[in-house]
């Protein structure tokens, strides 16, 4: 097995059950993440990107109505089999998490410095003053000027971009080897987004942590990611290195997404994907994209296409791309 392998997710399933129906939010997801790599998980709302992160952090799967299955090897150990107590030691320590909304991931009644210092206090049993100095160091690392006064301030005294920097500092305080960022820049303005993305890439270079970046923005993916997995209705439909995906997209959904995106300076008419995403509780057999797919044929209705290897590092879940490969 590859030494660089940090996260190996195999056949991950996360379902939500109610009396009448089951929502297959994440259905049979497999992917890997190497050290120092940024993997982008893209898809539209409701495709299961956020559920994937919650499943990996085991924030779901503890209740009867939530069903979690599969394996997720993180540094050789299966996260899905861990007990709650064991997970608590991993969360915030080896796995850092950056949420979309920095306003709701900070506690309004504790100072920013205190909240960051809590991480080494909890996980490394660091003394109070040691933890404080770690917090200061982290704030400096994420580019907050005047960090000593800033550490004593509260969340409401920070602007949006500053708060997100503080959240990143908190995620990094445990020195994680895996960083999960769920739409880290969606709530921010573009000029601030550029700063935060730049910071994340710089920190990755420094710490060699693996980053799982969840986003709906293909532009963000193209700028920072090394590899991309495109999700649709709870499944990965295409996975490839970033260049390959943007220049030779194989799956009709990926192609559709790229064609429906306005590009600056281009005068081409947008080609939208017709229809809308399927209801996750009214799933039928066959390919989930077939209703919106311009190339759908008989087999798509009955047989679900598996994620097929079409080139080195490039997989696509489409009957057409696998057929094309077989005919060679």
């Amino acid at each position: 097995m590859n030494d660089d392998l940090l996260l190996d997710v195999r056949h991950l399933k996360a379902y939500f059950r109610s009396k009448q129906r089951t929502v297959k939010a994440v259905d049979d997801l497999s992917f890997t993440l190497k050290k120092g790599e940024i993997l982008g998980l893209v898809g539209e709302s409701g495709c299961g990107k956020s559920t994937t992160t919650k499943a990996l952090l085991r924030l779901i799967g503890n209740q009867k109505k939530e069903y979690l299955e599969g394996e997720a090897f993180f540094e050789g150990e299966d996260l899905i089999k861990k007990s709650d107590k064991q997970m608590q030691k991993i969360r915030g320590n080896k796995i850092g998490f950056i949420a979309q909304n920095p306003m709701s991931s900070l506690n309004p009644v504790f100072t920013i410095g205190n909240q960051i210092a809590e991480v080494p206090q909890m996980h490394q049993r660091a003394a109070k003053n040691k933890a404080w100095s770690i917090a200061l160091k982290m704030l400096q690392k994420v580019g907050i000027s005047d960090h000593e006064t800033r550490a004593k301030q509260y969340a409401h005294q920070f602007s949006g971009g500053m708060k997100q920097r503080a959240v990143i500092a908190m995620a990094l305080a445990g020195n994680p080897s895996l960083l999960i960022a769920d739409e880290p820049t969606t709530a921010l303005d573009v000029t601030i987004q550029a700063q935060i993305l730049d910071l994340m890439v710089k920190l990755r270079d420094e710490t060699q942590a693996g980053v799982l970046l969840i986003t709906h923005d293909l532009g963000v993916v193209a700028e920072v990611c090394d590899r991309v997995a495109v999700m649709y209705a709870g499944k990965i439909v295409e996975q490839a290195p970033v260049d390959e995906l943007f220049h030779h997209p194989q799956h009709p959904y990926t192609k559709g997404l790229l064609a429906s995106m306005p590009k600056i300076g281009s005068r081409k008419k947008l080609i939208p994907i017709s229809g809308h995403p399927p209801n996750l509780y009214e799933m039928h057999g066959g390919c989930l994209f077939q209703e919106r797919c311009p190339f759908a044929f008989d087999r798509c209705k009955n047989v679900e296409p598996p994620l097929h290897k079409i080139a080195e590092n490039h997989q696509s879940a489409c009957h057409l791309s696998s057929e094309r490969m077989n005919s060679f």
Partner: protein
Amino acid sequence: MNRDYKPFIRVDHLKKYFPVAKNWRGKNSQYVKAVDDVSFSIDEGETLGLVGESGCGKSTTGRLLLHLLAPTSGSLFFDGQDLTQLSKQALWQKRREMQFIFQDPYAALNPRMTIQDSLHEPLKAYGEDKRTRSETIKTLIDAVGIPSQYLNRYPHEFSGGQLQRIGIARSLALKPKFVVADEPVAALDMSIQAQILNLMKELQHAFNYTYLFISHDLSVIDYMSDRIGVMYLGKMVELTDRDALYQEPLHPYTQALLSAIPIAEPKRSKKKIMLKGEIPSPVHPPSGCHFRTRCPFAKAICAEKEPEWVEMKKGHYVACHVVQEAHQ
């Protein structure tokens, strides 16, 4: 583009100040200058795009143009008539010709009314009889691509994209001449976004609407607009044809904004202009040029004097000391 016809909408030195604090006498002492001395015009059948980051005053400008907010000062000509001078009754009649498309389609429609009833409302308000109303609605709903058998459904039975289509249908029910669209696609997924943008373009083509299109997303603005205005902290900093804005942006803020946008083309060698810091508070904007605190080219004069709104080339307006000096 043909720039010879008379301006359909003309805005001169438009200002809107919102009071935020009172002094001990109970008089307003502090203001947010949401829109501060903005002048521009829109031709008939043209789309003017307004772009800027949150809090720059683009939505307030949109509301002022429909006279949903009374301006603090300045004049506003709609089809040759000054809206600020009209009586309530006359304004109400004029309102027929101008409409608004909202950002959040879920919030824009009454959840307890069927969409049929919602669509009847504007027509009822202007005293159309029942038969014409029903006929108008049939053609409208057809034009925006919603099957007419859905008319008796409630908003929760539709997806976001469908609701936005219905919202557009309602805005167009009274056959307006001028439509303000405030972030109409910001709440929608990428594949749906393209559907709505194309629909708005087709409708404009068919009925010769004049649009003011507001968005924070430069690529969406670029796709939709004939001319683009860039706003920063209540001021318009640049206004020109979309091609000129993209090919030779003059204002440092426009340049930074363009370079900050993540482009869906990996490994493109692009030099990023990273802006320092964050947007200052609009209650205490910097003296002189509002952008000077983040501007990489700021000089002494920028702190002393507000830059004037100057036409540098035909139809290309900029408010920047540095650019104006360089041209002299």
